[in-house]
């Protein structure tokens, strides 16, 4: 970039730099972002706006919509929470213990990232159906997984698991051995050390993982529809309701629900950022 382009008029927007290519890279980023994400989203907003606030509220307060949103958010929260809990344990085991096959298992945690959701859906459906490998074991106890909200839960645990593990794992790796030793020299037993010294700094990461997993779970479609049963008021999720509304030619309804989900997605991102800002202030890291 020439000296001229680094003139004062630019400075209020960005700090000058000797490195070239900002204009090109930034411009391309914006244009691409606008084309792929912003303009289409604006279309959604426009469509929703034509409904008016009252119209939107009408649609999303429909009993069936509310039920679907409740199912989506409730089960997603439960699943992300469950995944976070086990994710913490898994991350702990993978970073702190050495046992045969650890690397393999570590690699496997990313499976839900890489495995297409539809494949996961039919596979989970096949396993947890009353005649599947696991479902058949549970059936005698009257526990039904597939085609119940529990099935949604299973699918969503599957998709949110890697978020839970991968956000805490680096932090566990980073735990300063000296902290544990300091705690021990101060007289704390192992359980006290884990509970009072090692876990609290992980809380923001666990929350971040939970929020990421939740955001992903709420939007998940592919794996859920194969295992959910899709019963209105019981096991119907919001993304499916969007599809159903679309198939009923109810664009307005679909848009309104999509909008609500977008708002939730935005808020979740916001919450994640807040958690991270807070953690940075408090712990000096995320």
């Amino acid at each position, binding site marked *: 970039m020439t000296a001229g382009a680094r003139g004062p008029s630019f400075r209020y927007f960005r700090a000058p730099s000797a490195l070239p290519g900002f204009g090109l890279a930034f411009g391309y980023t914006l244009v691409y972002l606008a084309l792929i994400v912003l303009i289409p989203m604006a279309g959604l907003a426009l469509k929703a706006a034509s409904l008016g606030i009252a119209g939107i509220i009408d649609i999303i307060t429909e009993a069936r919509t509310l039920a679907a949103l409740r199912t989506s958010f409730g089960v997603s929260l439960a699943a992300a929470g469950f995944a976070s809990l086990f994710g913490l344990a898994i991350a702990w085991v*993978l970073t702190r213990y050495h046992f045969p096959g650890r690397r393999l298992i570590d690699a496997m945690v990313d499976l839900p990232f890489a495995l297409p959701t*539809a494949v996961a859906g039919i596979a989970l459906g*096949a396993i947890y159906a009353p005649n599947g490998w696991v479902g058949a074991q549970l059936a005698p106890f009257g526990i039904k997984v597939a085609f119940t909200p529990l099935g949604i839960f299973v699918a969503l645990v599957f998709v949110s698991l890697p978020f839970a593990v991968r956000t805490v794992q680096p932090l566990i790796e980073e735990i300063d051995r000296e902290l544990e030793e300091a705690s021990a020299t101060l007289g704390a037993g192992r359980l006290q050390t884990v509970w009072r010294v090692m876990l609290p700094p992980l809380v923001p990461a666990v929350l971040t993982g939970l929020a990421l997993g939740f955001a992903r779970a709420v939007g998940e479609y592919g794996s859920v529809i194969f295992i959910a049963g899709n019963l209105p008021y019981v096991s119907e999720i919001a993304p499916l309701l*969007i*599809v159903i509304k679309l198939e009923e030619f109810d664009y307005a309804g*679909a848009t309104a629900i999509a909008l609500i989900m977008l708002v939730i997605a935005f808020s979740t991102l916001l919450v994640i950022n807040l958690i991270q800002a807070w953690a940075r202030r408090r712990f000096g890291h995320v």
Partner: protein
Amino acid sequence: MASVSLNTGRLAGPRAVSRRATTEALLARWLLIAITLCFLALFLLLPLLAVFSQAFAAGLETYWAALREPDALAAVRLTLLVAAIAVPLNLVFGIAASWAITKFEFRGKSFLITLIDLPFSVSPVVAGLIYVLLFGAQGYIGPFLKSQGLQIVFALPGIVLATVFVTFPFVARELIPLMQQQGTSDEEAALTLGASGFTAFRTVTLPNIRWALLYGVLLCNARAMGEFGAVSVVSGRIRGMTNTMPLQVEILYNEYNIVAAFAVASLLALLALLTLAGKSILEWRYGDSLDA
């Protein structure tokens, strides 16, 4: 596993006593490992096994036949084509975005990062919907484009767009933390040595990020080939034309062709496994240059 005897009482000797300072009791460790293994087996391993066992349930012959079916082949071809378009697009975008974000200071940077992250948390179904709203025959610009003979939704462009949307942040996400950590001094060094901006990028920046880039591309590709929700909304499900592999899985499944469904699924699962293997190899060999 560390070999620590359980009787770590005072008489057990010094070795056993002090190890406790930084690790849990043996029993607790075993318990945790067992829980982990069970959990992962139940949620990750079993589905994977299910895919392959069902795919081969009727023997190898049937398996191959299912994959040689013209519709299946068409789906494979379409999926590869979509990934071949979407991944490079997002690759270029990822590099440009992370260059702008990590090498320069400007206002609204964190807002921009949030926007880039947004597609991660948007439901794939919504991702499909927004393109239908925009490009559908009832949409904002669909009728105009259609009058120009341009078919977006229910055709390749729509499928590509939806795929690009859901895989949008993958490469950028992988690069930004790494490049942030690497700072600008390497590029500055190159400049002081007389390299032009582009030369510096080509000879210094790119090699510095190559493994993270590859990793980002692997994940982006896996997701691009596996996307279901968004694509199903914009696909139109035309046999042999607009069905990607995941959609083909659903279709076969719906035609009672369970073996064929799982056969195609097994291809996707294989792709996932290859992706993970590639990632593990990268991490193992180039761990430090992947560090975020």
